[in-house]
């Protein structure tokens, strides 16, 4: 069921392919204190505490090569952020092997920190009360970015992120769209090889979102920055990601290209037919009539059981048609189906 990453992405062959992220059998457990009700019981936990173990990430394996732009999706609490934290060296894995461009994040913390950049939608790495440019100057000193590189990047961010519009404004006065752009600049100031984006589009309006997507695509293409992108917005995935990984309950349940996921899970099609006049409800072979509205009718079918041309021929033979469209399922719907449980979808998917 789970597409094996090594099958989908052969590491071998081309010597030009550089493996950037290498995770093997990674497990990360959390210990959570069991909270008790009542005063006496909570007092007792001061002396003898009970813990439960939670497998935030449970034996995952994947590889990402240089220059890939990977969407990493999954429901809340699936283990996405935990994976990112392990990769950035914040969390120490319980077991398994993790390498980022040849470095073990939690061991070579500082060297690894210099080759990665991160943007978190929920929190900023900029200092709240100071102008954006001052935060960037402090980051320049922390990351030891040479002055020439700093200047070059600032002018790049000027062009692509309109940095000059808000560089003298304190972060707390920025709009969310501006803040995300400023955070993007902060994350890329030291020219990292790998960029982690943890839900960077939350609450960002359509226009700003579009600009950020373009920017991410550009730095991925022009600077060969490898991007691991966590999001709940399937638009992000469809517009910019070449590969998607789905994680749920701490395990990778899908790893492959967007086309593959469509071919595999997106077997449902809907035919929308508009008739010349009022038409009584009727059944079509191997298709279900899901909706009737005025002169329009919707027929759902599985593309492996019947073909649109057959269906159209059948219907047009009975009633005159003036317009028709075939709707593919949204990627969001496909993902929802995958989250809900693989058993039923795998049945539906097999031809």
């Amino acid at each position, binding site marked *: 069921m789970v597409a094996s990453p090594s099958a989908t992405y052969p590491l071998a062959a081309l010597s030009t392919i550089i493996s950037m992220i290498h995770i093997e059998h990674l497990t990360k457990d959390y210990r959570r204190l069991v909270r008790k009700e009542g005063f006496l019981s909570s007092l007792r936990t001061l002396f003898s505490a009970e813990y439960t173990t939670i497998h935030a990430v449970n034996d995952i394996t994947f590889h990402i090569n240089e220059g890939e732009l990977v969407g990493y999706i999954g429901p809340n609490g699936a283990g996405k952020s935990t994976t990112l*934290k392990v990769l*950035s060296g914040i969390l120490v894995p319980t077991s398994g092997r993790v390498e980022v461009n040849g470095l073990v994040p939690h061991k070579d913390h500082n060297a690894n920190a210099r080759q990665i950049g991160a943007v978190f939608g929920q929190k900023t*790495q900029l200092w709240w009360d100071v102008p954006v440019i001052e935060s960037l100057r*402090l980051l320049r000193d*922390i990351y030891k970015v040479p002055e020439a590189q700093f200047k070059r990047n600032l002018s790049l961010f000027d062009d692509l992120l309109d940095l000059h519009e808000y560089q003298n404004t304190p972060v707390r006065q920025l709009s969310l769209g501006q803040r995300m752009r400023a955070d993007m600049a902060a994350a890329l100031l030291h020219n990292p090889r790998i960029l982690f984006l943890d839900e960077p589009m939350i609450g960002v309006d359509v226009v700003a979102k579009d600009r950020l997507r373009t920017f991410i695509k550009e730095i991925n293409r022009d600077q060969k920055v490898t991007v691991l992108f966590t999001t709940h917005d399937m638009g992000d995935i469809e517009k910019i990601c070449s590969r998607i990984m789905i994680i749920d309950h701490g395990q990778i349940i899908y790893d492959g290209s967007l086309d593959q996921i469509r071919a595999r899970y997106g077997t449902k099609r809907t035919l929308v037919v508009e008739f010349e006049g009022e038409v009584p409800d009727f059944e079509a072979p191997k298709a279900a009539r899901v909706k009737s509205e005025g002169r329009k009718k919707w027929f759902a079918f599985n593309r492996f059981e019947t073909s649109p041309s057959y269906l159209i021929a059948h219907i047009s033979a009975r009633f005159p048609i003036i317009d028709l469209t075939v709707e593919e399922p949204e990627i969001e719907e496909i993902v929802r189906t995958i989250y809900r449980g693989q058993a039923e979808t795998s049945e539906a998917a097999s031809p």
Partner: protein
Amino acid sequence: MKIFWSFTRQAFHNTVIYRFEFWLRLVSAFLWMYSIQWVWRTLYTQRPGAFGVSLEQMVTYGVLGMVLETFLDVGPEWYMATQVRSGAIDTDLMKPLDFHVHMLARSTGEMLFSLGVISIPALLIGYTLFDLQLPPDVSTGLLFGISLVLGYLVLFHLGFLLGSLALVTLDIRSISWAYYSLVSFFAGQMVPLWLFPQFLRVLAEALPFKSVYYIPMSIYIGTFTGAAALQAIAFQAVWAVVLLLISRWAWSRVRARLVVQGG
């Protein structure tokens, strides 16, 4: 070293935005200086000679305690606690900078900024309005300077340990209040240790807190001179090193079992 200066510049930009807070801090320093010198003057008119040193020395001790607070009070604990609560501690932990060094640079930057912008004006007020004495000679001034740096390091590391606790308990607000009262009392910020009752004095002499105010200020007013001053400085140095080692050890432990809130 450059990083320390970067944080000082950052602290400057931070405070420029809070101009109102700046004036508030200066006015509050003035009020405290005024109150403490008034208390000692009143006590001295009631019972002159009961406090072991001259009125001028005692007023200097009290006023200096208030001036020092304006720049020593920049511990990393609030920053650490705030970052833990908001989850932004992740972004700090991702930096290619040792966290302990990062906090030291941040606190020192803020300290240098406060020193220049608040403490120097407060000191000038002290000299002109409250008869603050100068140190008797240059070597005393020098020893005071060394002692002050060590005192700062002791206070920083106590704060760092408290902040590290925030990563375990996720909230240190209640502990902080106890901690601050403990520091200002046992450090002898307002009342010098020689006026403590016997059992409290024994305790206060052994604890590291006196490094922060009592030792530097005693050197300044001349109650610690020569060998006594050097011995006191050695005491501070030992505590600074011990607390540094404990801090590094505690941080590595905390780091290993870290669970970031909202993860």
